[in-house]
């Protein structure tokens, strides 16, 4: 008898995606949805979506959600979580959203030990506005607003948000993962699941940084983009668990 081994997660809506070819938001959405399904929390989860490419994420997740102003997702999530402490609240944010305009909000949500989960997609560039420099853009990386490459002397160096947040006592689980190959996808899903479990156990703030591609704005094919990610982004943004309350690395 035929057995269905692979299907769309219940927490994802059956619609076409607006994301560019080779963009990894779709994979990351799926991993988040699979985790929500596996934890059986679809009916009690409230998502907060950011400004940027994933501003339309609420069209894909079959859960209650609110759109936040640019960078303010952790503050919006704080308001929701304080009203509904029994619900599961997560934010989904890009690098411009979380590491530039919303840096204060995420730092203070983490410092307060806000019991929310943040999925941070780092692709080293602004996507939705057309490929401008992000706080995570690599030194010498060419973008629409760093046409001569990001200059260390004037634009400084990329921000490693996971390492930065890991120094805060309220942050209970911080991990950096990638979805550039199947093995890393498995690890990414495990980290996302842990980040939700940390919240469900009421332990505090949890964040998973997903190093991802942006083929369109990097000006590369999806295959080239994955290669560029591995060779350039991963040395700058090493994968691993940066904070775990049990101290397990």
């Amino acid at each position, binding site marked *: 008898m035929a057995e269905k081994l692979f299907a769309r997660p219940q927490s994802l809506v059956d619609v076409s995606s607006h994301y560019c070819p080779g963009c990894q938001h779709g994979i990351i959405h799926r991993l988040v949805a699979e985790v929500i399904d596996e934890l059986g929390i679809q009916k009690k989860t409230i998502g907060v979506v950011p400004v940027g490419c994933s501003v339309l994420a609420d069209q894909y997740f079959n859960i209650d959600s609110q759109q936040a102003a640019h960078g303010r997702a952790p503050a919006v999530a704080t308001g929701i979580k304080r009203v509904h402490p029994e619900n599961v609240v997560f934010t989904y944010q890009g690098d411009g959203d979380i590491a530039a305009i919303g840096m204060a909000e995420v*730092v203070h949500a983490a410092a307060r030990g806000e019991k929310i989960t943040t999925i941070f997609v780092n692709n080293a560039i602004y996507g939705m506005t057309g490929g401008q420099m992000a706080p995570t853009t690599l030194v010498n990386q060419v973008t629409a607003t760093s046409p001569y490459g990001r200059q260390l002397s004037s634009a400084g160096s990329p921000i490693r948000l996971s390492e930065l947040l890991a120094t805060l006592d309220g942050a209970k689980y911080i991990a950096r993962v990638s979805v550039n190959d199947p093995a890393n996808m498995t690890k990414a899903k495990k980290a996302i699941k842990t980040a939700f479990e940390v919240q469900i156990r009421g332990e505090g703030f949890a964040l998973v940084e997903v190093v991802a591609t942006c083929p369109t704005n990097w000006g590369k094919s999806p295959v080239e983009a994955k290669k560029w990610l591995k060779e350039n982004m991963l040395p700058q943004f090493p994968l691993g668990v940066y904070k775990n309350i049990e101290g397990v690395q």
Partner: protein
Amino acid sequence: MSEKVLMKGNEAIGEAAVIAGCRYYFGYPITPQSELIEYMAKRLPQVQGVFLQAESEIAAINMVYGAAGAGARVMTSSSSPGVSLKQEGISYIAAGELPCVIVNIMRGGPGLGGIQPGQGDYFQATKGGGHGDYHCIVVAPNSVQEMAELTVHAFNIADQYRNPVMILGDGALGQMMEPVDFHDLPVIPVEKPWATTGMGEREQPNQIDTLRLNPEKLEEVNNTLQKKYALLQEREVRWEETFTADAELVLVAYGISSRIAYSAMELAREKGYKVGLFRPITLWPFPKAALEKAVDKAAAVLTLELSAGQMVEDVNLAIRCSKPVHFYGRTGGMMMSPQDVFDQIVKIFATKGGK
């Protein structure tokens, strides 16, 4: 049983918010409204509520957005420069049609300005402040008692219309102590089936969005908002008038200025000048028709504000420039005295040839 308590205006707003069922407060300290945030810090834990001092006014208003979307009665408060920072969030709250109460205890501006009372945020409060075509309902109390009453009313109508309500006070009202009676303040609970509470038994998710990339959809949303604003203009206009029936000169003032105007009117009446007072209680929607009617028989109008002249524009619009509208104001945190206003009254009567 009626029992009055002596309280600061800022504290009265806090207590009335608790009575109204507000259990969530997000704010950031700023003078001259700090007694309100301090009151909420002390009071909310006593009623199993949540007080959170945010890292900034921007974060605070976005916490309000989240909590309001999640279905709670929620409040934030600040003073002029802090309210400027909140404008981004207020635009989103208006766009998401989320109910909440925002308190502005105004000080002198622009910029950091001072910490003494001012009314220079009238344009910001009533004409937008944030981006886009939206309105907050704006109420302007002129006593500590009314700060309590309008706070409960603000929560009720915020929920009823799914709209942010701003309580526009000033440093004088916030700081002054007066007896206040908290009994018989009607709290009207409103169901919120649209709130993000987790889907639970619902088949469809509740989603609070403000992005509408389709221009036709965005225009449709704007048209819906405008219909709500038209309804508010029809139903939710409040004002108070004194001795306007026979007045040759009608004073128009709100908030603390209306208290000074009242004393000046009494002085003038004692001297035989026929002066009346019109006090808008809702600044948006502005009581246009009522004002037009109130000044119908008067020869002139005198608008009094602690600003360089902002509401005076709405006064002119309301009466369609049908008669002279004079303005007198002080800025910088300076208060006008009843004698100052009386002197202005005498001048106006003199220019039109006596009493």
